[in-house]
Structure formats: structure tokens, C-alpha cells
């Protein structure tokens, strides 16, 4: 028996969409098997079938030599298949141990929960993963990386033979990623197979043994990681050649549009910087360095304790997003699903929301003008939607992000803050977003680009600010910036701003 899991000729039809078409996936014991494909390629659908969330239309699943039917996630877990989703599934107000044994608490003879046993077992699990934590700690006290480890501990407690990890590194710092990879290697050695889904292709080389590529619901092939290079993987994923990863074009950089002087609040210490017209200013740093907090402070979401913001040389008092928009600032928030868009509304309504005033005649919204204007922006940023009246929830991640972008173009702001604009977006759409950002700079917008992906910051920005614990610790020009320099400022080892 070579494979521990074989998924053969799996097909799944959703109304109007063939999500999977005769897809195969074979997993060996103790390997890290990377599953790649653009958004909508069918990775999640395939994993949800493996986990019993969806039922397959045809095909078979052979697990440990036996054909099995998985009807729900519980059955999958009990059979030895665990999934760790990108959005972690822990209950914040319960403790580590309570979460791990949720729904299957060991009972004493009298029918009450054997808490002693729960905590003891949890301790053993945590020790095994070398996690230094009290099993009684509440989940909401833990960072994302630690929560992820708890999910892994939970998977182990089911004696899983296969653990699926969906984008496990998307919210982790480099240090945390190394820790995760160490744990993955340890799991491998003990014979657990990992199905690893990630948009970060550079990780494949670091951690993967074999990989399977899906495209538009079709099985493209399975390859040994050591025999394939990243460019080839990208080509297989998108079915064409992606010419340039960072299509940087330098725009004419002129007057200062935004100046922040000695900004302080609960999360920020003495932040000062200037942003010019046509400039793409990068904001790098580790998770929790205060980059998002800085964006929120400038945009008027979080209060400022002291310090001033100047727009075009004039001091402004910005105490709400509404003030910020009136002063020509727009923000693409970190999480487009929960902060950037209103999923229940359509593309048009989302695009015109910040600037609805300009579509109002007397008291009524002029819908004709709204439609014409939104079509103009849909074409300008190339949103693939059947109509301006389609609900945004039916668009792919990349297209949703373009709707957020169109929103700020429609609002005609001068300064745009991008907070992780390409998180969770597939390769092809990423390049499109980069092109749009460059285009906007060329048209004289000033851009602040927050990103955790260093290659993105290096590839896109004219100048880079690095933050560490709420402070700006370094400033680098495009020419002098390297990953190493950014990291040394980001970890606080070095400082060059006085």
C-alpha cells in the first residue's frame, strides 16, 4: 500500500458551476503534500469533500486501503483526517484544554466531566509539540500563531493520520512560520501526512515533498517538489505565463500631500513621516508592529492622543472616517470581507457608498448616473462581474479587492492606504492589483502600502518605512532596501531614525 489516501476521479457540480472535474489526489504516509491552484481552482471544494462538508457527485475515496464514505466533519476527524482552516475554529472564551476536548470530554463513572483527565491529556499534547502553555489559558489570550498550534494539538488528539492546513502562514511572522515548519517536520517524522494549501509559493520549496496542481476544477498533475521550479508551478496554475511579478513603473514624485508629525496614541509612538504625490511608500514590519494601527489612526478610526496630520500643508483634524474621506484619504482595510465590503450589497452600491452624496439630486439618488459611473470604474479597474448589480459575495477575492479599489477611485481621494492588498489573492490577480496601484501613482495619487510580504514591499515601493512596536525604526530608499535591512529594523535590532 503506497498511499495512505487516494481520492480518485472526484467530481462535484454546484448549480451552474462544475467545481471539480475528475480530480485525483494521492497522499503518501508522512509527506507534506502541497495543493496549489488559483482561487476558484477547487482546492477548498476538494478539501471540504474530504472533510465531509460537501458530498461528492462521483469518484471514490480510499483511506488506509479501504473505500470510505465521509458524511460529516466529525466522521472525518474520527477516521483520522483533520482540517485546520484559515479562519481558526476555536472558541475564544474557553480554555485551551476545553477547546481541544470540546464535544468529547472524557466522563467519570458518575457521568460528570473528568476535568483532571482533560487537563492532563492536554498537557501531554502540548509537551509533545513543545508548546509552553498552561492548558487553562483562555484562547482569547493567545496570538494567532499560538491558536494555530492549539488546532494542531487538537488534530493530534484525534490521532490524525492526515492534517490539512489551509493557508496556515497567512497571518504569521517569519519566526512563527519557522516554528510551524519545525512542528510540521516533527509531525512528518511521526508518520502524519500533511496536505498543505498556500498562496505563498516560496514556501513550497521550503516545506513540500510533492505537489498537486488544480486549475478551474481540473486535475493538472502531481509533481516532486525537487524537480520543479516556482515559475513552472505558476505557469501550471494559471495556464499561461505570468510575465512580471512586480510590474513597477516609477511615477513622477512631486509635492508633499500627507505629513504626519509626532503622532501618538495607545499603540503608536511618535510617528512622523511625509508622503508625496505619485509616491508609493511602503510600510513594513512584523505582525503587531502597529502598521494597521497607524493606518486606522490616520483614517480617523482610532483616536489620536497627540500629534498632527497635515494634508497639502494644512493642518487637519480627522476624528472619523468621514473626516478622512472629506480630506481625500481612502483606506483599503486589511480584511476586505469584514471591513472593506458589504457582501449583501451589489457591486454598484459598494462602489458609490463613500461618495453617495455626488449621486444625489435634491434628496433622491440618481440611479442612472450611478450605473454609468460604476460601469466606468468597473471597466477602469477591470472587475470581472456579470453586471454592476451582481452581489459582491459572488466575486472572487481579487475582484472583490478591485471593487474596494474602485470605491476609492469613485470617491476621488488623493491619498490611498492599502493594508495588505494582496492577502489571500491568487497570483494572476495579484499582478493586476499591482498594476492598478502603479497606475494610480502615475495619475498622481499618493500611496501608503502596508504589506507583510517583503518581496512585495521591495518590488513595489519607492521608499520604505519599517515599524517595530509602534515606532518607525527605519527608512530605506528603493535602491538601498533589502530583505535583511528591513528585517533588522523590523525586529528592533537596528534603528536609523532619530
Amino acid at each position, binding site marked *: 500500500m503506497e498511499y495512505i489516501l487516494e481520492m480518485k476521479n472526484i467530481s462535484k457540480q*454546484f*448549480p*451552474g*458551476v462544475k467545481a471539480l472535474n475528475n480530480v485525483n489526489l494521492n497522499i503518501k504516509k508522512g509527506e507534506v503534500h502541497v495543493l496549489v491552484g488559483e482561487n*476558484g481552482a477547487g482546492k477548498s471544494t476538494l478539501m471540504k469533500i474530504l472533510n465531509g462538508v460537501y458530498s461528492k457527485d462521483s469518484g471514490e475515496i480510499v483511506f488506509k486501503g479501504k473505500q470510505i464514505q465521509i458524511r460529516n466533519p466529525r466522521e472525518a476527524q474520527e477516521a483520522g483526517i483533520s482540517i485546520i482552516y484559515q479562519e481558526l475554529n476555536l472558541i475564544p472564551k474557553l480554555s485551551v484544554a476545553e477547546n481541544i476536548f470540546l464535544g468529547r470530554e472524557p466522563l467519570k463513572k458518575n457521568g460528570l466531566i473528568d476535568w483532571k483527565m482533560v487537563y492532563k491529556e492536554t498537557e501531554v499534547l502540548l509537551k509533545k509539540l513543545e508548546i509552553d502553555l498552561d492548558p487553562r489559558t483562555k484562547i482569547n489570550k493567545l496570538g494567532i500563531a499560538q491558536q494555530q498550534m492549539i488546532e494542531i494539538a487538537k488534530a493530534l488528539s484525534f490521532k490524525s493520520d492526515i492534517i490539512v492546513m489551509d493557508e496556515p502562514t497567512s497571518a504569521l511572522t517569519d519566526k512563527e512560520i519557522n516554528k510551524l515548519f519545525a512542528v510540521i517536520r516533527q509531525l512528518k517524522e511521526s508518520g502524519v501526512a500533511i496536505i498543505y494549501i498556500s498562496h505563498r509559493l516560496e514556501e513550497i520549496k521550503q516545506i513540500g515533498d510533492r505537489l498537486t496542481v488544480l486549475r478551474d476544477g481540473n486535475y493538472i498533475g502531481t509533481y516532486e517538489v525537487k524537480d520543479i521550479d516556482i515559475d513552472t508551478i505558476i505557469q501550471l496554475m494559471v495556464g499561461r505565463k505570468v510575465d512580471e511579478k512586480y510590474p513597477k513603473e516609477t511615477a513622477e514624485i512631486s509635492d508633499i500631500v500627507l505629513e504626519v508629525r509626532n503622532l501618538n496614541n495607545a499603540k503608536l509612538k511618535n510617528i512622523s513621516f511625509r508622503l508625496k504625490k505619485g509616491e508609493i511608500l511602503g510600510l513594513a514590519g512584523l505582525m503587531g508592529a502597529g502598521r494597521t494601527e497607524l493606518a486606522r489612526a490616520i*483614517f480617523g*478610526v482610532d483616536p489620536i492622543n497627540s500629534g498632527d496630520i497635515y494634508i497639502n500643508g494644512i493642518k487637519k483634524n480627522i476624528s*472619523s*472616517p*468621514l473626516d*478622512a*474621506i*472629506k480630506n481625500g484619504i481612502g*483606506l483599503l*482595510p486589511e480584511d476586505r470581507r*469584514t*471591513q*472593506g*465590503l*458589504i*457582501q*449583501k*450589497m451589489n457591486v454598484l*452600491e459598494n462602489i458609490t*457608498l*463613500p461618495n*453617495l*452624496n455626488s449621486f*444625489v439630486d435634491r*434628496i*433622491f*439618488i440618481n*440611479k*442612472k448616473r450611478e*450605473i454609468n459611473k460604476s*460601469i466606468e470604474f*468597473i471597466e477602469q479597474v477591470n472587475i*470581472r*462581474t*456579470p*453586471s*454592476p*448589480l*451582481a*452581489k459582491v459575495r*459572488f*466575486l*472572487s477575492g481579487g*475582484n472583490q479587492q478591485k471593487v474596494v479599489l474602485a*470605491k476609492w477611485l469613485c*470617491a476621488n481621494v488623493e491619498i490611498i492606504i492599502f493594508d495588505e492588498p494582496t492577502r489571500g489573492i491568487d497570483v494572476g490577480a495579484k499582478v493586476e492589483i499591482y498594476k492598478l496601484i502603479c497606475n494610480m501613482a502615475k495619475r498622481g495619487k499618493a500611496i501608503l502600502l502596508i504589506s507583510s510580504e517583503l518581496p512585495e514591499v521591495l518590488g513595489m515601493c519607492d521608499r520604505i518605512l519599517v515599524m517595530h512596536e509602534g515606532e518607525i525604526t527605519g527608512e530605506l530608499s528603493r535602491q538601498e532596501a533589502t530583505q535583511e535591512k528591513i528585517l533588522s529594523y523590523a525586529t528592533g535590532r537596528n534603528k536609523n531614525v532619530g
Partner: protein
Amino acid sequence: MLDNNEPKLILNDRRSRLDIKGNLGEYLQRFGIIIALFLMCAFLSITSPHFLTVSNLANVLLQSSINAILALGVTFVIITGGIDLSLGSVLALAGVVMGVILQNYGSIIIAIVAALIVGALCGYINGLFITRLNLPPFIATLGMMSIARGLALVITKGYPISGLPEPIRFIGAGKILGISTPIVIVALLFIICHIILTQTKLGRYNYAIGGNEEAAKLSGVNVNKCKVILYTITGLFSGIAGIVLAARVNSALAIAGMGYELDAIAAAVIGGVSQAGGEGSVAGTILGAIVMGVLRNGLNLLDVSTYWQQVVIGLVLVCAVSLDQLKRR
């Protein structure tokens, strides 16, 4: 109106079909209630000879009018993702204020305006409770439910104020071009609500707040201001309902409208206004109110006791919402 301008863009994405499915679901939801209403009417016309008569149908609408006014008002706050439990109490307070002014000063205009202001003020205070004190809408309006009812009892000392002047009675019992005044009022309010929700900034913001409050805020919507306005509108509608009810029964009672809030919320929810917020229409709400009216009327005609009527209406509410949930899957 919008559809004519729609298909300019190319269908180049396979998700487009999903979108059409999404719309289908919405149409189903809208027509689902119409089909249910039609089936109910068909059944009742067969089983009772009295159902399908002009006078009975007019009666159904008249009986539904108070519930319809409250339901129209509460639709706004349910779309924000909130709730208003104070509708019935505010209705009583507004009616009683009108009654007291009529009794002591006799000025009809002042009495009506005062009732409207009291209703709007209660809603405004609900809005302040929710936005300034950060109370959950359930708690804030539960408080108002008790406050308004208590004030109504304090003002009247529990005695009814009866014998209202003729012009007021016209509001409840009169006819305009052969149609009962309350029905005309409901029709006017419906049109106004529909226009607010579909054609104005406030309406758009209402859906945006209910759809995703955080995203609405980050798009520059003044969420708190909008919420206060929307709760004020709901209160105003309770005030209108208070005037119409007092006029109809020719007396202002401090105990009027007990439990009406639940009927109004039920009507909106049966009409497809999502309690999660961000979805729904006043057309749905009106249909929901009519469904409840027809149901009550039909059960009366079929000689079902009022006790059992409660049971049936509860079941219908649960069924309507669970069907809605099923469709979403």
C-alpha cells in the same frame, strides 16, 4: 427600471451564473409569500362563503392597518440589524398624550402633532440609548417598552379617555373615496417608506449598516447619526399607529397595543426582512402584515378559538423563517 441598463458587461466569469441563482433565490423569497397568500385565500374562499366578499376583504385590510403601520416603522430598524420592542408602549403613550390634550385643550392639530412628537421622541431616545450608551437594541427598547407604558399609565392614572371629537374619529373610522381612512394612511406610508428605502441616501445607508456596520463606517457612513434617525422614524410610526388606533376605538387607553410589537416584528420577518440585517423591503413587510390579517380573519371565519389562533400564528412565523433559512443554504 434598472434592468434595462444592466447587461452592458460581458458574462465572462462563471460566477455570473451563481449570481443569477442568487437573484432567483430572492425572487423566490418574494414570490414565496405571494404564493402562500394566494393559497391561503383560495383555501378560505372554498371553505367559507363569507371570505371572498368585498366587505370581508376590506375588513381584513382595515384590521391589519395598525399592525401594518407598526411593521412598516420597525422594518427600518430590523434592516439595521436591530429591533424595537417598544412599539406597542409608544403607541399607547402617543394615543394617551393625544387624548389628554383633546380632553383639556380641545385643539385637534396640537393633539395630533404632540402625539407624533412623543412617538418620534421615544424613538430618538431609543436611538441615543443604542448609539451613545452602547446598549444592545433589545435592552434599550425593552427599557423604553416599560418607560413608555409606565408614563402612559401615570398620565391617565389608568382611566380610559373616551369620546374623541368627530374629526379625530374620521382618522380611524372615516372613508376617503369609499376607502377606510386607515387603509389610505397605510398606503401613503408604504409609498413614503418605499421611496426612502430605495431612492434616498438614508435608505442606502440603512442597508449598508445592516449589511456590515464596520465596512459602512470605514466607507464614511455616519453610522450613529443614521441609526438615531432610523429609530426616530420607527418611533414616529408608532405615534401614527397610536393616533389611528385611538381614533378607531374612540378612546385613548394606557393599556392599548400590548404585545403589538411582536405582531409587527412577525409581519416584517414573515415578509422576508432579515433579522441579521441588511435585507428586506417594505413590500415584503406589507405582505407579511396582510398574511397575518388573512390568517386571523380566516381562523375567525372557521370558528377557531382565539387561543388556537395564537398557536397557529406562532407556527406560521416559525415556518416562514425556517423556509427562508432553507433557501439560503
